[in-house]
């Protein structure tokens, strides 16, 4: 079971609710994915508040745990204020903390993220910080009390998968007591399987499903990949070898050592 701040989940997928062709497709994709946690954002109201109501009613029908984010925040102050609004709006202590440092890469400002995490933890939040593959930063986040750390696989929405595999392997080995979630950059179900094979606890994705040709079908594909990846991790995978090793037994191979029979 996946454990996040003491709560247990059978699905290892956290799924985003943005960028689907329609709310109906989003709802169906989330259901099909089996995800028990969805991410949402907090935005200034427009359209007389009706947009927020329509969206929120659909989310409530899904009967899932909500993880609000601080997406779009570029400062500690904005991220903290947005988290406080999210807590009021969604009535949850959970916050996916994003403090972005660069507009082009949407790379997290890891210094700001650590600072904001400290403030929010002190205010009683349960913080899910989005960070890079940097081991020191991940350790510092865990050190200040984050029970979940969410390094990127690659840039948000890029679909490139896990591009810093060695660093993320190291992070998994060093942070055995923390729930680690690969957040951002996954594009294919095989990327998600890979994350769980590496021992990561879960993945968080959005565009890979929402932006696919058939989000509902892709949601199913990710669910299957995650199941396979986790089972592989639990089974314990073989160690890669430098040279070939025959799969079939060598002893008893027919016609072995008979090449010279005629001449003897």
């Amino acid at each position, binding site marked *: 079971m996946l454990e996040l701040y003491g709560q247990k989940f059978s699905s290892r997928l956290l799924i985003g*609710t943005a960028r689907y062709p329609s709310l109906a497709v989003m709802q169906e994709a989330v259901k099909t994915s089996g995800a028990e946690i969805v991410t949402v954002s907090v*935005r200034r109201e427009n359209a007389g508040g*009706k947009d927020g109501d329509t969206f929120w009613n659909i989310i409530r029908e899904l009967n899932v745990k909500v993880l609000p984010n601080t997406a779009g925040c570029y400062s500690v102050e904005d991220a903290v204020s947005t988290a406080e*609004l999210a807590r009021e709006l969604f009535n949850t202590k959970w916050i996916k903390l994003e403090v972005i440092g660069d507009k082009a890469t949407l790379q997290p400002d890891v210094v700001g993220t650590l600072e904001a995490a400290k403030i929010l933890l002190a205010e009683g939040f349960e913080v899910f910080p989005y960070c890079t593959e940097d081991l020191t930063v991940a350790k510092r986040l865990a050190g200040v009390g984050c029970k979940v750390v969410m390094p990127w696989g690659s840039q948000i*929405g890029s679909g490139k998968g896990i591009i810093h595999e060695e660093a993320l392997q190291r992070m998994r080995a060093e942070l055995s007591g923390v729930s680690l979630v690969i957040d951002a950059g996954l594009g294919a179900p095989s990327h998600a399987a890979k994350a769980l094979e590496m021992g990561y606890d879960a993945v968080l994705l959005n565009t890979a499903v929402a932006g696919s040709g058939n989000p509902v079908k892709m949601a199913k594909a990710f669910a299957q990949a995650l199941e396979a990846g986790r089972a592989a991790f639990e089974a314990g995978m073989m160690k890669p070898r430098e040279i070939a090793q025959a799969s079939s037994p060598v002893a008893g191979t027919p016609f072995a050592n008979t090449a010279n029979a005629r001449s003897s």
Partner: protein
Amino acid sequence: MQKTAAQENVIALAVNGERRTVRATSPRELLAELDLEGEFFAVAVNRRVIPKTRWNEAVLRDGDSVEIVTPRQGG
């Protein structure tokens, strides 16, 4: 002579980053004055969250900066 905002019994607020002149003196009145019909809002005044239970009694003052937010799709 032009009347100032105070003389008109109105106050100037920044609501979601836009300057507005309103008669509302509480978050509850402000939501009504802005015709916000939805149910799911959170409100912050000068970055401080005003819980829904205090929307009637919290006082808005001239120059306050108000954020009104709703749930939205997110990743």
